[in-house]
């Protein structure tokens, strides 16, 4: 029998309390939600925040004075931003967990392996050429043009990535990362190419795509992205057993009754939908898809039924928390969100690479 040193399974783990971890993630999410609504450059007493929310639920909204300003800050800025952070964070974490399950590899982060850059390139192309195309499309399609384009870009990259990195159901870690780097570079090259035909105004918006931000959160954006992200979060639930079985290997998953071809296709489409929509509304935000699933596998175990729920909760909570940092630390200015998640995530990624030195051939 060949050496069976498995990735991320090199140390015995303490007894897991999966249910407890999920509950803790839910509590963290609720706490982050409340903190995000209460904290910001504008000081609003927590009681007033709650009051403003309750008034809004009752349909009342002050139209002048500090009441109006508080309503604007809480309802128009913080609330959509928080909701979008929860959706995008949860979506990216679930996408990371699903990708890692399909590739049987804990290093597959949508940003790292090129899925997000691919979606971003498609989004940039849509911004440049899409406005011309939108005239010929039905209104409903045009409204979702940006997330749909990003979805298509994410789909193409994910399929390419799978084709390149996987041979006979086995994914090589090195090939996955190399292919990811290559696809990321190709997407960057495409964006560079787009620069030549873009106007200066469009050009300025490109930093948004590479560094990520939730600064422009609005209910329209949430409405455009939520269906895709929820499709991923809810749909991934039915992938849980198949992804568990896939951990044994592709042939073995088939042996226990999993339709692996269908599973992989559905997984890739769901990931592309979720990541594409996330990129379309918030740019490329890295490392959430890497850090969250890994933390949960350590604490709650790798079983996907629990893992995916945990990812939706903890991913949302972690991105909300990162966004609080991004918008308060240099107040009244604001850091790009991608910078915050990269500062949090890069050391973690290096630590993971270090632990997988043997597998990576270092």
């Amino acid at each position, binding site marked *: 029998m*060949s050496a069976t040193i498995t990735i991320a399974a090199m140390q015995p*783990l303490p007894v897991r309390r999966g249910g407890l971890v999920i509950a803790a993630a839910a509590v963290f999410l609720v706490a982050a939600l409340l903190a995000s609504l209460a904290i910001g450059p504008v000081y609003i007493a927590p009681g007033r925040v709650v009051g403003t929310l309750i008034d809004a639920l009752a349909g009342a909204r002050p139209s002048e004075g500090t009441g109006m300003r508080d309503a604007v800050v809480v309802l128009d800025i913080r609330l959509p931003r928080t909701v979008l952070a929860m959706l995008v964070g949860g979506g990216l974490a679930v996408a990371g967990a699903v990708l890692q399950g399909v590739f049987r590899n804990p290093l597959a982060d949508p940003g790292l392996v090129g899925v997000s850059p691919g979606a971003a390139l498609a989004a940039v192309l849509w911004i440049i050429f899409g406005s011309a195309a939108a005239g010929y499309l039905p209104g409903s399609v045009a409204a979702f043009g940006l997330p749909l384009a990003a979805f298509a870009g994410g789909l193409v990259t994910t399929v390419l990535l799978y084709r390149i990195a996987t041979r006979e159901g086995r994914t090589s870690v090195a090939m996955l990362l190399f292919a990811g780097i290559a696809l990321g570079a190709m997407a960057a090259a495409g964006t560079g190419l787009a620069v030549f035909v873009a106007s200066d105004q469009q050009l300025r918006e490109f930093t948004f795509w590479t560094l990520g931000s939730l600064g422009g959160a609005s209910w329209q954006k949430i409405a455009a992205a939520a269906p895709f992200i929820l499709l991923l979060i809810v749909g991934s639930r039915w992938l849980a057993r198949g992804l568990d079985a896939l*951990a044994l290997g592709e042939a073995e998953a088939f042996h*226990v009754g999993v339709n692996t071809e269908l599973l992989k296709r559905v997984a890739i489409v769901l990931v592309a939908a979720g990541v594409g929509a996330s990129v379309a509304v918030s740019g490329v935000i890295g490392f959430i898809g890497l850090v969250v699933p890994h933390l949960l596998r350590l604490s709650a*175990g790798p079983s996907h039924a629990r893992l995916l729920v945990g990812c939706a909760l903890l991913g949302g909570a972690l991105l909300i928390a990162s966004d609080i940092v991004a918008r308060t630390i240099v107040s009244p200015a604001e850091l790009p969100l991608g910078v915050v998640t990269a500062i949090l995530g890069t050391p973690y990624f290096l630590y993971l690479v270090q632990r997988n030195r043997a597998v990576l051939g270092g």
Partner: protein
Amino acid sequence: MYAARAIRYEVRGRAILDGVDLRLTPGKIVAVVGPNGAGKSTLLKIMAGERRATGGNVLLDDRDLTEWKPADLARRRAVLPQSIEVVFPFLVSEVVALGSSQRVPRSEAAALVSRALSAVDLADFGRRVYGTLSGGEQQRVQFARVLVQAWSGEGAYLLLDEPNASLDLSHQLLILRLARTHAESGGGVLMVLHDLNLAAMVADELIALKDGCRIAAGPPEHVITDQLIAALYGVHASVRGVPDGPFILPQTARLPA
């Protein structure tokens, strides 16, 4: 009835298997023997539906294997591959539970898992992380998974690829006994085995493969002869017999000069 007929399997024009017949019946153990590269594992993969033969066909319950849905197939046959690397830190009990189909209620599945782990002498290993076990322990965990799958199905066949490759003697015997028990309870078993003696001991029927062709088939006492050993391995050995069946002693075997 679970039968392969005139199986041919080519990779880039080279035949790995050529015209192989194989029939599994409930209550019987069939063992495939042969030298390295004879096509034994490929034959098992084709029987499992994991690979598709380039010629011939496999019928299960009178339906071509390619027409089966993976989930239905999983209820009729369970497969133990040679070695399995599990990514992510799954617990032993979680790995074993993957054998149970979704139709089995959760509490019942848990009972099957602990029964299977006891059967392979790993009763207390449920909460251990699979990746931390030794090679032999991992193999027994996988065997337990296969048992759970067989038990959750209906008269399922077992397809075992070298089920005792890295086991000590007592656990080798344990696994063979479990296979025999399965056959006695009405299931069919196919095993690929390296060890001729074990094969002769456990199998009701032996199939000898060389270079992708079936060169002998039948009850062990008919198949295992000095001539076959010479044809299969190019080794001169003299076959002896005990009441349980034929055997060879490696001490008596000689490579040709």
